[in-house]
């Protein structure tokens, strides 16, 4: 499980996705619906002034934080420790899981509730805890549905069950959870709510991710719409928050900016229904909250990006604005990426965290249209990073040999005018046998892939250079 989704090769996953007409319609509807909402809450919201200035501020805050990551991580962990919490730095997913397993075993925990968290998906925490006899109950509605389905995984980092419709959800809950009602969303939600009520009350441990750690106070900020994070963090005596090591802000002032950027970019909300901030006060009799608090900070390959061209990929606040405008994601959905991180940011992050062997094809699943870069609230140059991944993929020898040969030939051709001159003269003659009714339907060589679905233009018979020469001599106009 963990970060990877499925075992099939990339193009098989793409074919599966393209066959799933329902899923594709949902993706298109979601993108089209979210576009207007996002515009209304960002550049269309006069109350917040210039959205571009917000993006600049977001970029600046993230850059500053990442450039001083050691400092702020230390400040965060010192403040958590001062308040009686425990901080564990995990270099790998295995280390993070082992620590959390140990905590669960010490508590003799049998049941844990969990708020939506991508980093716990990334490290495969549910399986790890199940291995030591502690069952993790997903409490975010979408994650609850996916967990009921047993082998289903998130297809969107903000809306995990975007690929499922209400009748599929009804079928899942009927089959797996004893649901007997209709496919009305309200009824389905009420069922999940009633089921989860007991689960919340009986949990031994509450687990959350972390949208932002606040370094100055040692707090964990959670941005949700369902309120489940409040339930997860207020019932059990033990709380474990798992944080990607880059997910923090210096102070509450920056948190304000980041939460605005996140909720407006993610779902077009000025603010989400809940922003839950947990500051441990272990040992204090006067306050609510956990008696035992653990913050697990996960590297998981992130530090490989520090100091490289990919450092700004760590600026990501997981809003999925790039996913929501990606024309490739629109057609293939999330699972085709084979990673829990999908869309443009997934194609950038997955190879960093999981390597080129596993995820090297993802950066090619983009037409480089740059809609992602334009949408990103913290201005990550996503399409440029996709190109950089491709460069490394080529440099490290993963690319196809025939493609390498073709590109070497291109480099020579595109820097030798005499060769290009021969080409402009020779191509029309050479291509002539292939041309029918003004275009080529069955190409040869690399053209073959093009003509699988489209006509290839017939090379023009006029030589432009010759025309231009005659034209400037005072000669021909063309029609």
């Amino acid at each position, binding site marked *: 499980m963990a970060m990877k989704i499925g075992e099939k090769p990339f*193009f098989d996953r*793409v074919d599966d996705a*393209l066959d799933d007409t329902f899923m594709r319609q949902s993706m298109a509807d979601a993108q089209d619906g979210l576009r207007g909402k996002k515009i209304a809450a960002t550049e269309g919201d006069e109350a917040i002034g210039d959205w571009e200035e917000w993006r600049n501020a977001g970029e600046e805050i993230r850059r500053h934080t990442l450039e001083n990551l050691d400092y702020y991580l230390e400040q965060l962990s010192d403040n958590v420790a001062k308040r009686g919490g425990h901080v564990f730095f995990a270099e790998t997913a295995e280390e993070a899981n082992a620590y959390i397993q140990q905590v669960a075993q010490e508590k003799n925990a049998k049941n844990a509730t969990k708020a939506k968290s991508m980093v716990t998906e990334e490290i495969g925490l549910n399986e790890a805890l199940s291995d030591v006899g502690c069952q993790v109950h997903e409490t975010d509605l979408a994650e609850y549905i996916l967990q009921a389905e047993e082998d289903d995984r998130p297809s969107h980092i903000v809306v995990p069950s975007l690929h499922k419709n209400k009748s599929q959800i009804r079928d899942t809950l009927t089959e797996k959870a004893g649901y007997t009602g209709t496919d009305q969303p309200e009824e389905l939600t009420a069922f999940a709510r009633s089921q989860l009520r007991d689960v919340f009350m009986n949990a031994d441990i509450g687990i959350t991710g972390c949208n932002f750690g606040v370094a100055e106070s040692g707090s964990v900020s959670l941005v949700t719409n369902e309120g489940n994070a409040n339930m997860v963090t207020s019932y059990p005596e033990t709380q474990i928050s798992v944080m990607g090591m880059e997910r923090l802000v210096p102070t509450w002032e920056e948190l304000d900016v980041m939460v605005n950027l996140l909720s407006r970019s993610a779902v077009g909300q000025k603010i989400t229904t809940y922003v839950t901030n947990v500051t441990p006060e272990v040992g204090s009799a006067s306050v609510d909250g956990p008696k035992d608090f653990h913050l697990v900070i996960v590297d998981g390959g992130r530090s490989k990006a520090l100091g490289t061209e990919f450092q700004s990929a760590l600026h990501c606040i997981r809003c999925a604005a790039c996913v929501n*405008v990606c*024309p*490739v994601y*629109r*057609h293939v959905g999330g699972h085709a990426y084979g990673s829990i991180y999908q869309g443009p940011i997934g194609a950038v992050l997955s190879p960093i965290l999981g390597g080129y062997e596993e995820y090297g094809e993802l950066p*090619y*699943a*983009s*037409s*480089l*249209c*740059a*809609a992602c*870069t334009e949408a990103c609230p913290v201005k990550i140059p996503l399409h*440029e990073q996709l*190109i950089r*991944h*491709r*460069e*490394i993929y*080529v440099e490290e020898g993963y*690319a196809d040999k025939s*493609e390498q040969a073709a*590109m070497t030939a*291109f*480099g*020579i051709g*595109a*820097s*030798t*005018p005499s060769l*290009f001159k021969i*080409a*402009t003269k020779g*191509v029309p003659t050479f291509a002539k046998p292939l041309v029918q009714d003004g*275009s080529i339907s069955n190409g040869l060589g*690399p053209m073959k*892939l*093009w003509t*699988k*679905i*489209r*006509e*290839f233009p*017939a*090379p*023009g018979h*006029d*030589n*432009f*250079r010759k*025309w*231009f020469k005659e*034209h*400037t001599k005072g000669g021909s*106009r*063309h029609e």
Partner: protein
Amino acid sequence: MKVSLFATCLGELFYQEAAKDMVEVLERLGCEIDFPRGQICCGQPAYNSGYRKDAQKAAKQMIATFESSDYIVTPSGSCAGMFKEYPRLFRDDAIWQERAQNVADKTYEFTQFIVNVLGVEELGAVYHAKATYHTSCHMMRLLKETGSPFKLLNNVEGLELLPLENSYDCCGFGGTFAVKMVPISEQMVDEKVRHVEETGADVLITADGGCLMNIKGRIDREGKPIAVKHIAQILNSRS
């Protein structure tokens, strides 16, 4: 005003009519046009596929060819965008980076040059058709040029310009993406063609050779009765 024409490889090989129209439109506006003969291709096929060294070879050829020009004008938003990428392509080579910046700074897409540099919006063009316009991604997002094509097209006599649904979505070209990711590219271009059909337009206009080749290729394969034209062809039309 002296203008160097960068016809682009697609322009020279496939879309000579558009390149000729562009020459005639610019001449009518008083530009003195030259065609530097060392020009070939902006290098984008290699650059976008991750072959930086091969892309640099193409880029050096273009920089050497155009660096003494006053203005470089090209009938492709994407190729103009690539010229603007040159300084980043040579980020590890200060000397070439400076030469690249010099070329990037004086490069314009055709309509952008007419509207923003020449300050002209009315070309006296006449073209009788119902048409819609495809906004190419690189022109919109790398060059940040969105207004100029519309300013010029809105002044074409006889042209009824219809709005295109989801105009901001890519047509699925993406250079080598179109052949590396055929099944995905196919869905993208099909959605684009569907939206074009829904407008009821007889003609699709674009300012980019790559998008033109992709969308026209699909329209022709499917036998749809929609013509695809480069914007220069419309702007040079008089009937």
